[in-house]
């Protein structure tokens, strides 16, 4: 018997705190699989954000640094400048990256920092209990948009990948999703290319991963996958905005 699939070594043998069906778990595993395949766990330092994935430092089998809310790209900058030969990635949610940490992400991208950012967009604040995120969709009900998100009050959802792709200094920007197995495979491929881009010194890479939040969306895990596909993807198209030839 040959093993087709088992737990990657770069994940610790710990059950995550994520709710059943939360796709954070899939995204964690994809990063770990890539670390295994590139054999870089020993030279990788990950940065955990504030948000649902704050405990990411318990789940990856590599050195981890926990950062203040939104500041992961600045922390990554300090780490990468001090350890240019190591692999540095930050793992950030939409509140962290697209709200409180917009300055840090935009300027890390604008400096072309040679780091990899995994941006998990599930259109809501999970950790604090389902408040509106800048990426929440119009009419989406959250605990701080109880009547549904209204454009007149809060504008339209922010598309970070599109924004960052306009910066000349970014090397790789892509939006992927994990709502079905085929897309999970595509997401992994892109995460791998982002890490390779960093190893080749090509500069700033970010993979935006559309993800679910069954609990705060008030949906079953399977309904949540369908909601992502039917509502998020039309607004957040899956696209390789920039992928350097060297990593394809």
């Amino acid at each position: 018997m040959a093993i087709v699939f088992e737990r990657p070594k770069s994940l610790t043998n710990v059950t995550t705190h994520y709710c059943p069906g939360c796709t954070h778990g899939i995204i964690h595993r994809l990063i770990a699989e890539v670390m295994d395949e590139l054999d870089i766990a020993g030279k990788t330092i990950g940065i955990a954000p504030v948000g649902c994935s704050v405990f990411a430092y318990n789940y990856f089998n590599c050195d981890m640094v926990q950062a203040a809310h939104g500041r992961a790209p600045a922390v990554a900058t300090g780490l990468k400048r001090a350890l240019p030969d190591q692999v540095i990635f930050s793992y950030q949610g939409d509140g962290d990256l697209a709200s409180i940490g917009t300055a840090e992400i935009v300027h890390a991208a604008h400096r072309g920092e040679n780091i990899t950012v995994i941006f998990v967009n599930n259109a809501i604040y999970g950790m604090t209990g389902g408040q509106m995120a800048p990426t929440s969709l119009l009419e989406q009900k959250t605990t701080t948009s109880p009547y549904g998100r209204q454009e007149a009050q809060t504008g339209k959802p922010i598309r970070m990948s599109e924004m960052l792709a306009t910066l000349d200094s970014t090397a790789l920007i892509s939006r992927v999703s994990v709502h079905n197995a085929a897309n999970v495979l595509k997401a992994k491929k892109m995460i791998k290319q982002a890490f390779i881009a960093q190893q080749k010194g090509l500069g700033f890479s970010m993979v935006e991963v559309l993800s679910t939040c069954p609990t705060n969306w008030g949906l079953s895990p399977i309904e949540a996958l369908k909601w992502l596909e039917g509502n998020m993807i039309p607004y957040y198209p899956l696209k390789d905005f920039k992928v350097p030839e060297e990593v394809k």
Partner: protein
Amino acid sequence: MAEKILMKGNEALAEAAVAAGCRYFFGYPITPQNEVPEYMSKRLPELKGTFVQAESEVAAINMVYGAASAGVRCMTSSSSPGISLKQEGISYMVGSQLPCVVVNMMRGGPGLGTIQPSQGDYFQATKGGGHGDYKLLVLAPSSIQEMVNLTMEAFDLAEKYRNPVMILGDGMLGQMMEPVIIEPKEPALYDKSWATTGTEGKRKPNVVNSLFIQAEECEKHNINLQEKFLQMEQNEVRYETLYEDAEYFLVGYGTTARIMRTVVNMARAQGLSVGLIRPITLFPFPHVAFDRVASHAKGFLVVEMSAGQMVEDVRLAVNGRQPVAFHGRTGGMAPEPKHILAELIKLMGEVK
């Protein structure tokens, strides 16, 4: 650079950091400390170090957090409004037990204030500054040579206690020029096994973190931190006393202490029994300096470029044994010797 050269305080401080082995600087421009990042932007590339002009003070301190996680000697500098923005990151660094040096060349406040020198950030520097129960080791030089020496020492102290150390200067110290000697020295070696440099497959992963899920664990962590602060109080108190046998003492730090030396000379020339107590560490505060003169002192006059901040610590140190008077200027104004002398004579009149 072992010969004497004429340097601005800010430049001397930057070169001292380099001489102490600092190769990573992250900052953001703000007057009156711009010479620090400017100097570093010239100097660090010569040494294959890194200078990054961050997008904000918030980002700069978090870059320091990242570099410090890697175990390297790193620093950021700013002036009052910028230091307010760094408080979040400083609190995280204390919580995660990361060493670094933070420089504050104070200017007049509150708000945007003025670009002239001030000492209005004493509370912020010595009582924590950000959220949570913590202290920074705070060093307050009063000459450029002393700023050089204390900056070099600050890097060792930061690593010794795995805690940020603050150099608290002011615009005057940053901008004035004095001849200095800067002798590079090998950094003392402290344990860095906690650093996140990549496991290289040789050890269990390290985690730099200030989050605790259990209140019991967080309290235990706090007890450990308090133990460190207590050790600082036991080991690191520094101060200077002039004329310890005097009856009256001027008390001040930094630029103000410099001005008060002039006043002490003026007063003694008039036959008055006046000395000076100059705290060099603001945390830990040198209570012992006041205990040592308690048996014969008749009064203290605290002078600050603030509305009265360190005076509270002096009152705690004196503990009601003698009267403590205060004279302060704010908003970027410096106290003048003649006014200080007048206040001193007034205090003497009230005591007798």
